[in-house]
């Protein structure tokens, strides 16, 4: 905990007029009192931010948001799509721009010809798909806006296969509730100590089977650049950017993401961000 005070320049302003009448004194007292209350309140907010039970209460708002959003706008509502003229000249890249992991770099050197997307978990027929196989499947092209949790937006054109199409081929079991995306990039550097920090994400089946949820292999008409997640990334168009996992290696269907890593369903979720990123 860092101790913080209201800047004294703010609390003690108003000395300029020399005369220190009773009114001025009272005003000083009032200002000091307000400053004091402010300081204590701010310190209190910081203390509460480190109180797990309190933060759990704050974080519970996402369940309310998600429950309401399931009704309005609804499970199948479509994110806005744009015209080719709206596409940004340069689509912003964020997070990992080039995975440092040796296994990924080897795949990249080979033009991803050795890469395969593994799809398994709670499914009837686990399968693996090459990039060529995914490209041969029916595709969807969409121009959408990517909204980062930081606040910026970028518009790009994505082409890929709908995740629902891939899931239909592996036949999810009835108890499958979430789709987990496992990625190639270690976020905290390659895991020399064996600690896995590779990016991962998860969404529910509504988002997984949404029309606009595609496994994208093209951005703006070109093969997906490495900085945007080559060879394959997922688009979850109605949620913030950190849900759109890049450098996909594996997709698993699970009943619960609690047993995975930090238990919160994603790399950034394990670092304090909301699992539901619809706002």
């Amino acid at each position: 905990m860092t101790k913080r005070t209201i800047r004294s320049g703010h609390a003690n302003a108003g000395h300029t007029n020399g005369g220190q009448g009773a009114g001025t004194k009272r005003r000083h007292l009032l200002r000091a009192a307000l400053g004091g209350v402010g300081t204590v309140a701010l310190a209190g907010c910081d203390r509460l931010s480190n109180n797990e039970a309190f933060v759990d209460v704050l974080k519970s708002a996402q369940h309310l948001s998600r429950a309401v959003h399931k009704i309005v706008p609804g499970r199948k509502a479509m994110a806005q799509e744009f015209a080719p003229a709206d596409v940004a000249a340069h689509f912003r890249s964020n997070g990992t721009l080039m995975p440092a992991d040796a296994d990924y770099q080897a795949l990249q050197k080979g033009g991803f010809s050795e890469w395969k997307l593994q799809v398994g978990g709670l499914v009837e027929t686990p399968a693996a798909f090459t990039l060529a196989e995914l490209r041969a499947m029916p595709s969807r092209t969409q121009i959408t806006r990517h909204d980062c949790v930081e606040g910026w937006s970028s518009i790009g054109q994505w082409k890929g296969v709908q995740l629902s199409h891939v899931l239909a081929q592996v036949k999810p079991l009835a108890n499958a509730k979430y789709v987990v995306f496992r990625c190639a990039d270690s976020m905290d550097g390659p895991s020399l100590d064996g600690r896995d920090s590779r990016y991962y994400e998860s969404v529910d089946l509504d988002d997984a089977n949404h029309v606009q949820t595609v496994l994208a292999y093209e951005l703006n008409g070109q093969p997906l650049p490495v900085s945007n997640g080559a060879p394959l990334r997922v688009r979850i168009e109605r949620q913030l950017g950190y849900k759109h996992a890049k450098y996909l290696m594996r997709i698993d269907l699970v009943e619960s993401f609690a047993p995975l890593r930090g238990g919160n369903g994603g790399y950034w979720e394990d670092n304090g961000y909301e699992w539901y990123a619809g706002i």
Partner: protein
Amino acid sequence: MNPSAVPVDATVAPALAPPERIYRHRLPVRLMHWINVVCLTILLMSGLTIFNAHPALYWGRDSTFSAPWVSIMAVDVPGGFAGVTRIAGRTFDTDGVLGASKVGDATTKTARAFPSWATIPGPQWLSMGRHWHFFFAWLFVLNGIAYVLYAVFSGHLKRDLLPTGAELRNIGRSIKEHLMFKHPTGAAAKRYNVLQNLAYLVVIFGLLPLVIVAGMAMSPMLDSVVTGWVELLGGRQSARTLHFLAAMGLLLFVLVHVFEVIVSGVWNQLRSMVTGWYAVPADKVGE
């Protein structure tokens, strides 16, 4: 009644009479006012934490990273860095407050847009700022809906908030009185004055709905309520700008509001918003 037992009030000069007290603010209004105080404070300060994660504003659908119309940043200067604010191509030196400021008791500056004394939490911590913001956004919206319903159905809106035609015609006088820091007394003090009415109406039916709708327009999920509705605000990045400007408008309102409370009798005003009872400032003798 014994004719000699004349009520004391009638025999003394009006100026010495105990002030007339009126029940000015009803319980629901008082309660919702203070909930609003807590919500707006937390929303503003946690909002600045969120802004700090990408301290630039754009107009349009997406971000033109090279040309924001507002950006707050730290720039390199000999011997370190300094905070500057750029608005529409002009650069302002805001070192120490915007762009670079000391966090707490630190002796060196940190590069951050809004200073730690203006954000919740104090340290730059986006995920925590979001948790505060969205929890209190719900409380704020529910409180706001309850208030508007109450105002309409209890008669508060018609009785207290809407100015009469005569009041509107006399707006010039009210402006003059405000500029002279002259506050209404007697019967006139029992009602909100016309500038107060207009300020409250602009906030309740203008700024507050705008800040909420522009906030919702930033949600990628709520974007899908009606395809393309975010375009009505000029696109998502325009909505972010409008959300920020509306919040600054609310801050300005709060500063003026608190100033007026202080200069028009701070304890009387505070008491009336806590207990409901307001002492009507007496008319001056001979007026």
